């Protein structure tokens, strides 16, 4: 038996990671423009301690992963957790045979096309879109450099999916010590109607603004700019006090913020070009600048393990600059949305 699904192509945003790349491939298969769906939302919503050690971490709350990625569209996803590698392959095989590509979690250590092959363990995500049982191969798509669209052995994918993802050396950072567990993700896309109209864009921007301006209730939920400020302020304080245990959490959450912000900047720029609205292009550049703050935050924290006090001071300063720029951008966004 074999299957090979058409319509699979690489997609990647340079500030995203394997989650957005995988989502882009799957959304593209379903006929959607990934930037339209993945770039619409801009916000900050993180519950302390929610971070999981996976490259494809995204804070979801009560929503599914894809509903969280694209909250303005009719997209959902379901994680499946098979009880064995055999069941894991049977389920993925059946879904692909039925005509739908899926995302699978996999440890790069076992994937021959990944630079981490036989070197670094990590919890990665990629697309499976075909197989050939006679040849013993499975077709996968991974847009993360060095991008790969081709076949590997079924047993190689199975080993990657069934990995315990252990910590073996110092570069097994952030996304290890979390068994892969043969998990796979089923995605449903329905009712996508193309790029947002002027009216729909105004609704989306208004909703984003409402979220960003949210009130911080002081709980473990960090919502909107007040929550973002508290999250970073607490992290800076802990680092300044010598507590490096916060590094992993802030690095991963900053990575999400970086991706979401970068995607939204490009989303606004695309809308500005499509609608002939120059203020959207200016706004897009400002959002981009916020993303570039997050690039700094991410590395500032990641390099702070050996000297958390210095990282804490740097993060405190960066947080102030980020928030000031973001508040100005939010004000501009409100004006631009109102004028649409």
């Amino acid at each position: 038996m074999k299957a090979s699904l058409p319509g699979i192509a690489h997609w990647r945003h340079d500030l995203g990671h394997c989650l957005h790349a995988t989502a882009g491939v799957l959304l593209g298969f379903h006929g959607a423009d990934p930037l339209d769906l993945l770039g619409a939302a801009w916000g900050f919503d993180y519950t302390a301690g929610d971070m999981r050690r996976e490259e494809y971490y995204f804070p979801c709350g009560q929503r599914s992963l894809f509903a969280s990625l694209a909250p303005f569209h009719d997209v959902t996803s379901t994680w499946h957790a098979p009880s064995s590698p055999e069941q894991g392959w049977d389920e993925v095989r059946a879904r692909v045979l039925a005509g739908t590509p899926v995302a699978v979690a996999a440890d790069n250590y076992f994937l021959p096309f990944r630079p981490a092959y036989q070197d670094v363990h990590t919890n990665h995500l990629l697309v499976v879109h075909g197989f050939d049982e006679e040849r013993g191969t499975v077709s996968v798509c991974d847009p993360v450099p060095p991008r790969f669209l081709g076949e590997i052995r079924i047993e190689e994918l199975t080993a990657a999916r069934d990995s315990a993802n252990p910590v073996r050396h110092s570069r097994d950072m952030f996304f290890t010590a979390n068994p892969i567990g043969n998990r796979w993700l089923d995605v449903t896309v329905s009712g996508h109607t193309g790029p947002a109209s002027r009216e729909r864009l105004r609704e989306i921007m208004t909703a984003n603004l409402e979220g960003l301006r949210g009130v911080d209730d002081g709980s473990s939920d960090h919502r909107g700019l007040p929550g973002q400020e508290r999250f970073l302020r607490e992290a800076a304080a802990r680092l300044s006090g010598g507590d490096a245990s916060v590094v992993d959490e802030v690095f991963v959450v900053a990575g999400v913020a970086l991706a979401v912000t970068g995607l939204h900047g490009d989303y606004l720029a695309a809308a500005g070009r499509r609608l002939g609205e120059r203020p959207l292009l200016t706004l897009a550049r400002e959002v981009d600048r916020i993303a570039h703050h997050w690039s700094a935050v991410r590395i500032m924290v990641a390099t702070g393990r050996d000297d958390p006090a210095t990282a804490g001071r740097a993060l405190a300063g960066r947080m102030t600059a980020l928030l000031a720029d973001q508040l100005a951008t939010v004000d501009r966004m409100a004006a631009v949305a109102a004028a649409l």
Partner: protein
Amino acid sequence: MMRPLSLAPHLNNTGLTGEDELDGGGFNIWGNTFPAGELPPAGGTAVVGEVPFLFPVAGADNVRCRGQRVDVPAGDWDWVHVLGAAERRTEDLVEVHYADGSVRGQWLRMSDFWPQTEPRFGEVLAFRCRHMHYPRHVQRTTSPAIWAQRVPLTVPSGVVALVLPDNPALHVFALTLQAVG
């Protein structure tokens, strides 16, 4: 007239390694490095476009930006040419300090060194390596980049120092001043 600057007092990161010392550096947080053998000789002058850059010597060979103050020799300087790369693209203000105590900010924008990633800020591609070094192997399917960027000095006279941003995602391998005229 071009005037390469020495960054020797500020070098704090090793981004270039040979194949016999793969774990001898760590440009990014994962310990990846550029293959020194594919880049100009250590300590030599590399010309990118028409700009000569003093290519770093072996060992610590670039500045991970953490607010270092780089002294500027007397002159009327029009541009600062920058050889660098970032861990995800980023931008920040460089402080331009003047003899009279005034300070002006100028943007330094740098694209990602990561393979298969386009420049975001219109930089010139200075070097595209064919391989990337990992601490325990050479990855022959990944091609990291070093970019040539420039920063304007809108008031050319009296510059005494440049203070790099406190942004460790931003790496600088070399700086060269270009005189007015």
